[in-house]
């Protein structure tokens, strides 16, 4: 039955090649745009190296400090995290690190600007970096403030050319470090691991950070198991509720929490000074944006489908005259439309590869690694099916309502 439907559908598609071309062009380009957007979101949010343990990781990235006259929102100080984020129950380990900051070096009169991140030793245990030379620095290095650094491949090329860098010294931001490890580049959109150069926190130029409640530090927590995340979030929130204000005259309330990466993005966009991260709002916003974008393509496809009813009038008349129910006809046309959108989706997928590769090469996003994977493919499939149903239901219903006698005489309305 299905086979005969498909055969019939294929015949109709081949009969009017111009229409088929228009439909496929529209469908494939629509799905191409959605696939590229999905791949970009995926590269920001989905768990992948070095964040291989993302499923049981929570982050404290930004907190909001709220007062009667003023507010402050952003990363917090080392002292604050040291006091309120350590020793949470069910947490295996915690890592503290700074936001990446631009840092300048001069090599033989040439200026090199790199992103510098200061981290502790645990950072390298929670995140799973891909080392091409040497290894990470350790908790002992952090304790003794050893001037050691991990750099990425691009930085190695900038400082040392093609040669290996292990053990070699270099200067950055007026300080000297020795390379102990070289890692593969991490895209800038992965805010937690991203940097060009990583050095121990304790090598900071001054040690005042140890006493500061406000600053540019963040923390990631590794839970023992994924199921423990809600309990950990609740415990941290209750600690925040009782935390001492960094400046009681200015701030009376501290808002925020330990977030998954999706929640962190939602908090950044919607709820910088609230306790709840509003992840639901981000999900709704993404779906709305997708629906808004699909509106025009859908209308276009509906119009094309509707105008083709006449093409099928004779066939519909015959099927109706022989007793086919309206539902059977609706099903048939829907399936045909789905096949068409899936075909368009496949084309879009084939085009998405080169488009993403071009985006990566363009250097718009430093070290971008946008790409297709099974997850993106699955999302793409879901989007194509959704699109097919959306654009097929109304025309299919219209077709099934043709009067058999009129349909046989070739009149549509």
């Amino acid at each position, binding site marked *: 039955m299905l086979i005969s439907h498909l055969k019939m559908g294929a015949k109709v598609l081949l009969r009017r090649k111009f229409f088929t071309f228009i439909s496929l062009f529209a469908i494939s380009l629509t799905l191409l745009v959605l696939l590229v957007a999905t791949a970009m979101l995926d590269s920001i949010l989905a768990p992948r190296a070095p964040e291989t343990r993302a499923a049981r990781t929570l982050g404290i990235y930004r907190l909001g400090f709220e007062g009667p006259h003023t507010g402050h929102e952003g990363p917090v100080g080392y002292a604050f995290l040291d006091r309120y984020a350590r020793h949470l129950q069910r947490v295996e380990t915690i890592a503290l690190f700074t936001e990446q900051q631009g840092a300048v070096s001069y090599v033989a009169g040439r*200026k090199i600007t790199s992103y510098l991140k200061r981290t502790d030793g645990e950072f390298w245990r929670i995140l799973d970096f891909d080392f091409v030379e040497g290894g990470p620095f350790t908790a002992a290095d952090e304790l003794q403030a050893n001037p050691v650094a991990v750099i990425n491949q691009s930085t190695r090329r900038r400082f040392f050319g093609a040669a290996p860098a292990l053990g070699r010294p270099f200067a950055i931001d007026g300080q000297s470090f020795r390379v102990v490890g070289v890692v593969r580049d991490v895209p800038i959109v992965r805010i937690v691991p991203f940097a060009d150069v990583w050095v121990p926190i304790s090598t900071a130029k001054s040690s005042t950070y140890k006493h500061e409640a406000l600053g540019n530090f963040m923390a990631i927590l590794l839970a023992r198991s994924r199921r423990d995340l809600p309990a950990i979030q609740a415990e941290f929130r209750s600690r925040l509720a009782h935390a001492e204000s960094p400046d009681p005259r200015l701030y009376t309330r501290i808002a925020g929490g330990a977030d998954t990466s999706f929640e962190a993005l939602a908090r950044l966009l919607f709820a910088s000074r609230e306790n709840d991260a509003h992840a639901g709002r981000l999900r709704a916003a993404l779906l709305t944006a997708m629906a808004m974008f699909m509106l025009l393509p859908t209308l276009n496809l509906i119009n094309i489908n509707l105008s083709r009813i006449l093409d099928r009038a004779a066939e519909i008349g015959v099927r109706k005259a022989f007793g086919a129910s309206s539902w059977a006809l609706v099903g048939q046309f829907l399936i045909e439309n789905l096949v068409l959108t899936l075909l368009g989706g496949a084309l879009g997928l084939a085009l998405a590869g080169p488009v993403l590769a071009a985006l990566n090469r363009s250097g718009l996003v430093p070290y971008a690694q946008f790409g297709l994977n099974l997850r993106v493919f699955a999302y793409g499939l879901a989007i194509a099916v959704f699109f097919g149903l959306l654009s097929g239901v109304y025309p299919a219903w219209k077709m099934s309502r043709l009067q058999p006698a009129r349909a046989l005489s070739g009149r549509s309305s």
Partner: protein
Amino acid sequence: MIRHLLKLVWNRKRAGALLMLEIFFSFLVTAVVATLGLFCWRNYRQPLGFSYRDVWQVAVDSKQWRGGEAPAAAARDTMSRLLRELQSLPRVEAAAGTMVVPFSTSDDVMIDDSGHGPVRMDFNVVSLDFDRVMGLHLVAGRWFGKGDEALAWQPVVVNRNLARAAFGGADPIGRRLGVPDPKGQEPERRVIGVVADYRKNGELAGDGNYLFLPQRQPGGGSGHLFASLLLRVRPGTTAAFEEELTGRLQRIAPGWSFAVTTLAEMRASSFRLRLAPLLTGCVIALFLLAMVGLGLTGVMWQNLLQRTRELGLRRAAGASRAALLRQIVTEQLLLTTLSVGLATALVVQLPISRLAGALPGAVMAAGLASAMAVIYALVILCSLYPSVIASRVPPAEALRFE
């Protein structure tokens, strides 16, 4: 004629409604992209109000947290010494401290609601030589001077937009600019000068109100240290000077971090940041229009095929092919006019101009007009080919068409 055609359109209202909806949304998308594009173009042609060439910026990370406690006297002293060091260098023509860096994305904003309505303004705390470093163009009054500390009130310099917004046509010099101060500690502010403009966000951003405050204490405002130092270097100074510059500053403040960039570089990256979304929007709108165009052509073709007999009848009754063509295209234009009219009415009565900030009415009108031109051109283009084919069918054949 039009009335008759309206009747024809009305008779096919069901099929027409969906087409109208499609044209409606295409128009909206085109209007948004065209308006934003024209807005950027208009802004680009306005004067910037300062000169960014040969100006360098030294971002100073003093490891003092904004929003934290007021900086210590020692830190203020260090900042003043850094500034003096820069001013003493022969390659530097002038140097000044600033809280907000030109072309950066961060802003300090305050709202004055002492007058008729709230006036929103960006503000910046700067040191004395800021006008020389940035090449500001003073149109009335004076810039800050050495004797200002002795005044019982705080002098401020505004841009022309702010003077107009706060005082209308009146002479702004000497007028009070009231900003509510919850603690009542700040002295009253009086305007001492007007600069032509200072468009901190660069050429692509819209008009805004701007206010300059003088440094209240050495090295910064009342609460914070300067975030960066700006210097005008002698023309022809190369990047090689950067290393020497950083080294000198580093020796004065070993615990701080410095990063030198030229304002030209910052301008380039600010352009990229502002143009990237616009270009993405353009690409998506072009693709949507291409798709809609192809779709419309297909739909028109199919519709005209259905009306073969009607058109044949008209030709048999003596209508010329040109008349037929005119009829079909006019029908489509009627449909388009209906949807475009609806969309325009919707856009005009929405308070979009307020949402988009200071979007001038002329830009919006130009955006709507160019979107109209695009949509009409698209519809005519899409209906021409199918109608030529339809009008070519010989009447005898058309009348027999099933």
